[in-house]
């Protein structure tokens, strides 16, 4: 009998701990499919963040390192410098990458460090129970912005792709989403592209994946995906923000 669908080799059999309706599972799968498709499983090393994806080291079947909060790009830099022929990726959330790890993110990008960064933006700190993130939308109610994010006192969300695109160095930056079949297909291509760039030695690639958090947003999974479309994507427009292959 022909196998028409199976779990990627780059994923282990460990059951995921993610909440019902969370899109981390989809994004894990897309990363794993890219690793499988490119035949790089045996020479890939992943770096897990602190946050909801902290246990990603149990889910990806390549060698894995668990980094301190926000430090994944620095750890990945060390791994890549030590092993230039290995494929190094980080998998980080918005608090990890855009708040406590902003310096590591910006500087890995400006060095055009030859790594792949998967940035999951769900506009909230999920693991700690739903606090305001650097990417929480204006007015968004969270545990630490119970009256809604007041931009007058805590400022505006950080648009990571736009920010990093102001740097000269980074090779490839794209924002995608996983709230619809069409968007998932686009995300798959983008993530694969980010790994291909590294294999070709092009440098820093970051894929921001606009994601949902039904549990901490207080929504059903479907409502959360709808909110991604109605509220998140208008604030975080999808698209390619930097593609140096198009620059002569």
């Amino acid at each position: 009998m022909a196998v028409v669908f199976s779990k990627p080799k780059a994923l282990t059999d460990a059951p995921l701990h993610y909440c019902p309706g969370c899109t981390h599972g989809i994004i894990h799968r897309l990363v794993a499919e890219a690793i499988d498709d490119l035949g790089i499983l045996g020479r890939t090393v992943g770096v897990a963040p602190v946050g909801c994806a902290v246990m990603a080291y149990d889910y990806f079947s390549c060698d894995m390192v668990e980094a301190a909060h926000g430090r994944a790009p620095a750890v990945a830099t060390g791994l890549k410098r030590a092993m230039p022929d290995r494929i190094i990726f980080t998998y980080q959330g918005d608090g990890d990458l855009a708040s406590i790890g902003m310096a590591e993110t910006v500087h890995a990008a400006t060095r055009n460090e030859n790594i792949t960064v998967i940035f999951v933006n769900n506009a909230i700190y999920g693991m700690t129970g739903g606090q305001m993130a650097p990417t929480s939308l204006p007015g968004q109610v969270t545990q630490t912005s119970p009256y809604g994010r007041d931009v007058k006192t805590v400022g505006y969300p950080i648009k990571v792709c736009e920010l990093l695109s102001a740097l000269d160095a980074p090779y490839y930056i794209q924002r995608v989403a996983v709230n619809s079949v069409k968007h998932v297909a686009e995300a798959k291509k983008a993530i694969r592209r980010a790994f291909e760039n590294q294999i070709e030695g092009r440098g820093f690639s970051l894929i921001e994946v606009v994601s949902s958090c039904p549990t901490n947003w207080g929504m059903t999974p479907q409502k959360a995906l709808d909110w991604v479309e109605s509220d998140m994507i208008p604030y975080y427009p999808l698209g390619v923000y930097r593609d140096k292959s198009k620059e002569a």
Partner: protein
Amino acid sequence: MAKVLMKGNEAIAEAAIRAGCRHYFGYPITPQTEIAAYMAKRMPKIGGTFLQAESEISAINMVYGVASAGRRAMTSSSSPGVSLKQEGISYLAGSDLPALIVNVQRGGPGLGGIQPSQSDYFQATKGGGHGDYHLIVLAPASVQEMADLTVKAFDLADKYRMPSMLLADGTIGQMMEPVELPEETDGSGVEKPWAVTGTENKREHNIINSLYLVPEQLEVKNLERYERYKIVEQNEVMYEEYMTEDADICVVAFGIAARVSKNAITAAREKGIKAGLIRPITLWPFPTEAIAKAAEKVKGFISVELSMGQMIDDIKLAEGCKKPVALCSRVGGMIPSPEQVLAAIEKAERGEF
């Protein structure tokens, strides 16, 4: 081999390269910048990595990455910068990763000053970051030891799968002395089957991690680590004894304080006072037995420090409070003179501690 004249900081850098370290990450801070400058010149010529990180925090995490790959890595800094590295050092300890951290100490707390100090003794020997852990802490007292103990620090870190620290001070870092450089090795003496070098589809994946959410498992990890620390304490204590055979007064000092103390001891001997020195070379593990043995015959101890009385606690613990222990110290970047130490010895000789 012929000796060369080198600055202490440069001796660390050259010795690290000769120990097979090809990955250095740092951030500028006085008085250790010569290490980074030396690495910046040499590493590109030998296929190594010199990277000026965006912060001390990033530098130690880059070290964490290289160490995860099973390669020798180091970072260096001075006191305020080493405080910033503590998060990463705790993670190195929690993930059982070998690496070298150099602290060329300056006065503190806060921004402090840029002159020599030993006031990071507690931070270095008692943990420094969060959680139960130790570093192997080596304290050089000469430019020769800057080189020799750098190699030793890498070897011990690899052997016991734990980070090590070279706890120097601004004086030894900045001064020049003749040094015989160590032999070159590639640093691959210890097998590292745990390293994340890619599975090559031939083995289960390796995971470098310090997170254990099940308390029973985390307790076991801590207990296992402390069993390993016991072996380090049994096997790796290093110290120098100077004129202790017949000593009535035992000075305990490390690094630059030990050199000043030797002059004072010579002067005391000329005055007929039987003084001697125990110089810890490993601050952790501390030479507890040597101190305890000395306690059986001396009148008392003097802890000579460039701090407000930090090592003195370890001396008291080692000798079980059987004999008095005096403190002779200068701080803030000041160094005790031989006369000050001699005065403390004479006082002790009179039974005043």
